[in-house]
């Protein structure tokens, strides 16, 4: 049985790729994932926000220590050489590349174009097989139009892509008026793939302090249907790689997405909740399903129930409300 799939021009031995998450922070965990059968790994993201905060720290506490008092013009030693989040990221990437046989995809998470081009190049030089650009943008400005948000994606992509030889995939959010059109625009702007979809962590309110606090909520299986629909509709209408992400918890989720047309499926929550070895279970179940349903390869089934190939193509477009409600 051939589980291999094409992803950003790379041939992967199967479509299971752990997504950017804390899983990739420990070399040991990553090796366990590889042993469990992961075909590639997306490294945890280099967050623009983190780098920005670090910049501020350096600016305030290293480079501008003077308060104008005669007895001291600084209050901490100024290191001759110091590491940074970027250095650590590159070092970790290097370490992963040394230790693993599977491709390693680096991930940049940010919204502005400043500085990314340099970092992307450094990532390329360090040996990443591809780069995921995770554009995590909350369009909070009431005066910013949808059009300009879309342009922001394109600009960021182009800023990073201009100097890159390795493939680049954009992880995007579902909050576009026209998701399909946006994917096509990204393709035209040079993306080699898109990863559908980014999840936004929603803040909560602490009922004691009344502070607005970040909340970490892991995905649920049902969330994968959102990606499935759009992948099904995009399949064969665009040429770039389609990666599915968000809510992929079991072999069933994986198979549905592949049938809809995904080239790879990204796993995260299920591996955090279970264990890295759970990936092997999913692979076994996939094989079992394919055997039962007499599929010889992933390529054979990929996109076989996409909108283009589905028995009822209109089902993907219907609002579905009525049917869903009736079934209750």
């Amino acid at each position, binding site marked *: 049985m051939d589980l291999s799939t094409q992803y950003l021009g790379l041939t992967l031995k199967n479509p299971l790729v752990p997504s950017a998450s804390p899983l990739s922070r420990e070399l040991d965990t990553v090796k366990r994932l590889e042993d469990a059968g992961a075909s590639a790994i997306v490294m945890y993201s280099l967050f623009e926000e983190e*780098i*920005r905060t670090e*910049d501020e*720290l*350096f*600016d*305030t*506490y*290293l*480079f*501008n220590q*003077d*308060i*104008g*008092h*005669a*007895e*001291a*013009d*600084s*209050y*901490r*030693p*100024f*290191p*001759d*050489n*110091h*590491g*940074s989040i*970027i*250095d*650590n990221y590159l070092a970790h990437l290097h370490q992963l590349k040394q230790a693993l046989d599977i491709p390693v995809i680096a991930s940049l998470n940010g919204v502005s174009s*400043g*500085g990314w081009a*340099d*970092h992307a190049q450094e990532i390329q030089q360090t040996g990443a097989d591809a780069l995921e650009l995770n554009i995590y943008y909350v369009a909070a400005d009431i005066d910013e139009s949808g059009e300009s948000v879309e342009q922001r994606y394109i600009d960021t992509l182009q800023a990073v892509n201009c100097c890159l030889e390795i493939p680049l995939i954009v992880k995007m959010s579902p909050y576009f008026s026209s998701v399909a059109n946006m994917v096509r625009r990204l393709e035209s702007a040079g993306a080699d793939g898109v990863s559908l979809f980014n999840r936004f962590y929603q803040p909560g309110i602490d009922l004691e302090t*009344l502070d607005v606090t970040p909340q970490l909520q892991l995905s649920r299986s049902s969330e994968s249907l959102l990606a499935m629909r759009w992948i099904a509709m995009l399949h064969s209408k665009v040429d770039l790689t389609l990666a599915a992400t968000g809510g992929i918890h079991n072999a069933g989720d994986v198979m549905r997405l592949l049938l809809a047309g995904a080239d790879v499926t990204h796993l995260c929550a299920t591996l955090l909740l279970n264990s890295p070895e759970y990936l092997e279970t999913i692979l076994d179940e996939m094989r079992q399903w394919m055997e039962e349903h007499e599929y010889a390869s992933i390529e054979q089934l990929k996109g076989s129930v996409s909108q283009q190939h589905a028995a009822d193509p209109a089902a993907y477009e219907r609002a579905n409300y009525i049917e869903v409600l009736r079934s209750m």
Partner: protein
Amino acid sequence: MINNPIIIDGNHAAALIAHQTNEVIAIYPITPSSPMGELSDEWSSNGQKNLWNAIPEVIEMQSEGGAAGTVHGALQAGALTTTFTSSQGLLLMIPNMYKIAGELTPAVFHVAARSLAAQALSIFGDHSDVMAIRSTGFGMLSSNSVQEALDMALIAQAATLESRIPIVHFFDGFRTSHEVSKIESIPAESIRAMIDDDLVQQHRDRAMSPDHPVVRGTSQNPDVYFQARETVNPYYRKMPETVQSCMDRFAALSGRQYRLFEYVGSDDAENIIILMGSGCEAAHETVDHLLREGEKIGMLKVRLYRPFASETFLASIPQSVRRIAVLDRTKEPGADGEPLYKDVMTALADRAMREGGSMPLVTGGRYGLSSKEFTPAMIKGVFDELNGDQPKNHFTVGIRDDLTHTSLAWDDSFVTDANENVTRCLFYGLGSDGTVSANKNSIKIIGEETDLYTQGYFVYDSKKAGAVTVSHLRFGPDPIRSTYLIGDNEAEFVACHQPVFLERYAMLDKAAQNGVFLLNTQHGAESAWETLPDDVKLRIIEKNLRLYVIDAYQVAADSGMGRRINTVMQTCFFAISGILPKDEAIEKIKGAVEKTYGRKGRRIVERNFKAIDSALANLHEVAIPAESGSSTARKDNIPERASEFVKSVTLELIAERGNQLPVSLLPDDGTWPLGTGALEKRNLALQIPVWVEELCIHCGKCPFVCPHAAIRSKAFPADAAADSPESFKHVKIKGKEFPESTRISYQVAPEDCTGCGLCVEICPAKDKSQANRKALNMEPYTAPLREQERINWDYFLGLPEYDRTQVKWRTMKGSMLAQPLFEFSGACVGCGETPYVKLATQLFGDRMMIANATGCSSIYGGNLPTTPYTTNEDGRGPTWNNSLFEDNAEFGLGFRLAVDQHNAHARVLLEQLRDEAENKLDQELVQQILAADQSDEVGIHEQRQRVAALVEALKALDSPAARELLGVTDYLVKKSVWIVGGDGWAYDIGFGGLDHAMASGRDINILVLDTEVYSNTGGQASKATPLGAVAKFAASGKGSLKKDLSMIAMAYENVYVAHVAFGAKDMQTLRTFMEAEAYPGPSLIIAYSPCIAHGVDLKNNLKQQDLAIKSGHWQLFRFDPRLAEKGKNPLQLDSKEPSIPFNEFADTEIRFSMLRRTHPEQAEEFMRKSGEEARARFDHYKQLADIDYTNDAVLTELPEDK
């Protein structure tokens, strides 16, 4: 043209040589020499090697005394060893210096010469310190400039090895140590060539070694000590020759020829002056100028002061000289002349005696104490005096002495022609806005890109919050010898980086005719003119200045730089000044930015670039009208209530006119009045808190946490506020303990608030319908708000203070009704120390005596022009003194002994009088006084009343005993002795004394403001620095645990010991202060004090304390020996076991988190260990606190030994 130029300051220059030519460097931080040690430490930690391919060992000691001991030891064990120090530090080294010299040990001590503490401490430059060591046997070699600090450091090192006589190489503190100058570097091969390895080997051969053992440091008897002391004479006789030969060798290598005594002037000069240090440069410049004018004068620079080579000295002076003025930068009260004068006199007199002939007329004078300006005009004044009929001897120059009339007159209008081709620039900036670093950067750019000589000198502030810096920059085609500030009408370029400074500084007095004035203002080119004060307009028109404006804050903000305007203003400077072609300059600024931030700060670089580009676009020239028109005028704010002294002295100091004050106006013994901090009105805040009275729950937390006592609460009867201004807020006080009609007000002092926001941070009262609105909210500090709250504040001050006998002291609300007698200090915005000091003054201020160790708390506590300590309406308040850094516990113990002695004396007299004058003194009154319980406010209040009655009665008695008693009656009322200082004092330099004071068992209260680092001198590690924290001298993280001072103190068992952190548990802090003060023996409060050195924004001060407690970095506890007496465990733990991982605290502070970036593995290990240690320390305290102290549990008999 300078070969291989480098642009550095004097400290850097001396350290460069010291680090390359030594193996061991033992130091201790002290201003202004600290940077030499810091640089050496930095170089060693970066692996920089010395001439022998080894990395010098740099060790920070617990005091300069300790450093000197270590130096002595390392020298005796054969290592080339050096140290750096100044002032009191040098004094502490004296005992070892005698030893080192006595043993003929080669070594160089590099000294940034500084004033000694006498009537006051001063961090600034003069020769008081080096003159105090001239009998130690050390050679003394003086450098007059940054170039010389480099050159002479090397010459000294070579000469000491050859002569075996140790040398103090000194240069003037600040003027040379901190002047940034473009100088010629010394190539490595020249340094190598100057140091003779045979001599190094000889030094090593003389070292102590068990392989060829000797004894040194013996004790000698009358039979030989004297003769043995004379054995060194040949070395001292030979030394001048040796030094000259080193100078000659150096000249052959560098082309710079120095002489022991260097004469500048005409060969047939009749009048000359003699001096040493940086003043020589100004004198050289002046002499050159006067020579060009045809005068027959000269000057002699003394370089080798000890041994004083009389013959060479005499030979250096032209035979024609008839009159000599010798200038000393020191004062020896009571002497008939200062040291250099006397040496000159001796040499001349000796020659006259031996050879006959007449002596020149020699006068001696003092100049330049504590970096007092020494200008060509003053130097000309000295020459003019020499020309007079009867030149004044024992004169002073640079001040106006109307008391003993020592001072010479000078003509301020005299300037030399040396600066004709020099561009002079002045920049007025905020300490925190980066003006100084931008200017240092500009000097570097200009120095590197042109053949111009450069000079940068920076005048700093004595405040920490809102400090003002004035940068004096000179650029010119010839070497710059102007070792004085840019004077009136001299600056071709004046920049004002803060519009508010226009009100405070007459900066355009400095502007030269046709110069340029650059102003940062929010007003555009069209409207800016109208906003200028009248005198500024007048100067601009008078001097035909070109005026440029830029809204630098806007440009910075738009570029994402926040309030950092340095790059913007630097760009404008280059754009206008024309020192470099504009485009080239811009490119260089950008290059410098890139070099600074590099790859890791990509976004910072981009922001800076954006700021640079938009600075050019937003810089506008303002059209100057022909007439000034009318507008606001600069005015001095003279408070009506101020005393004559305050008006004539303090306010003059505040107005920056201290230099003009004559001697007679100044206190002769260093005594100053309290309450002057309130006069400054510095208006630093950008936002101030505004009280929402209906939300307030009257918890008292805001005045408690305020570092500057700028928000207060007051409770008063309703009718007291009947005439309040309309905007004055007050409400009925919550709580049954107050009379029905009592009102309360929380009022901010708008002009004294620094805007730190801690009061808002701590405020627990939130608006139910708007979570971000509290009972206090920060609001923009606008002119109307300022005016309104200024009126309210004045009104608030006039309201009656709450009766201290009615205060419920154990509640926060109650105790915060007490007036702080420590207010508006110059401490940092959000300071972690001052709330403790303020609290102590609220609780005990009216009976407090404070001994304050040198450090931050002595600087914000007692640095002129003002003091934050103040008095209550009765005129009582804390009395404060700073002795030294090292002796503070002993100093405070002395207070206690004296007070107790006075009290005992008073009691004896009282008893005596009672028995003698039975009919006249009220027996019951006497008895009550003698038996008074003064353990609380009521007791103290009643005792004060009784003593007042006693005073009246005594006055009526008119007997000798009564008069004697009248002199000490004050001591019948309790005095609260406080010994205050930082961790550098308590853990390190003053620990021995602290230990002894605690062991004395006397009633003293020791407050250790623990910032875990030497804060005042710039963040050097102390023994209070925690494991893994990065500090200076611990660049790779402190490798040892924080010393547990409390545990040491608890070992005495009769010391009250507590750990507090006001931001984490305020009630525990309050209770601790009250218990400690009430405890009749020694009390030690170790107070956790977040500091800018931690690498945190102090607006998070309270949060950091909370995290410190939660992570176990800091524990809260009280150890009260009184409990043990009652059969209870004396130790009470007030904080819980660590509830968050150590790194959750540590990662929020750069002092810890930086290590993750420089030494990641070590950081990981330190974090792990610190976490374990936090837990272990807690467990240890917990176990101690759990011991059963009841009698039954005490093991009385040991089991029999079998």
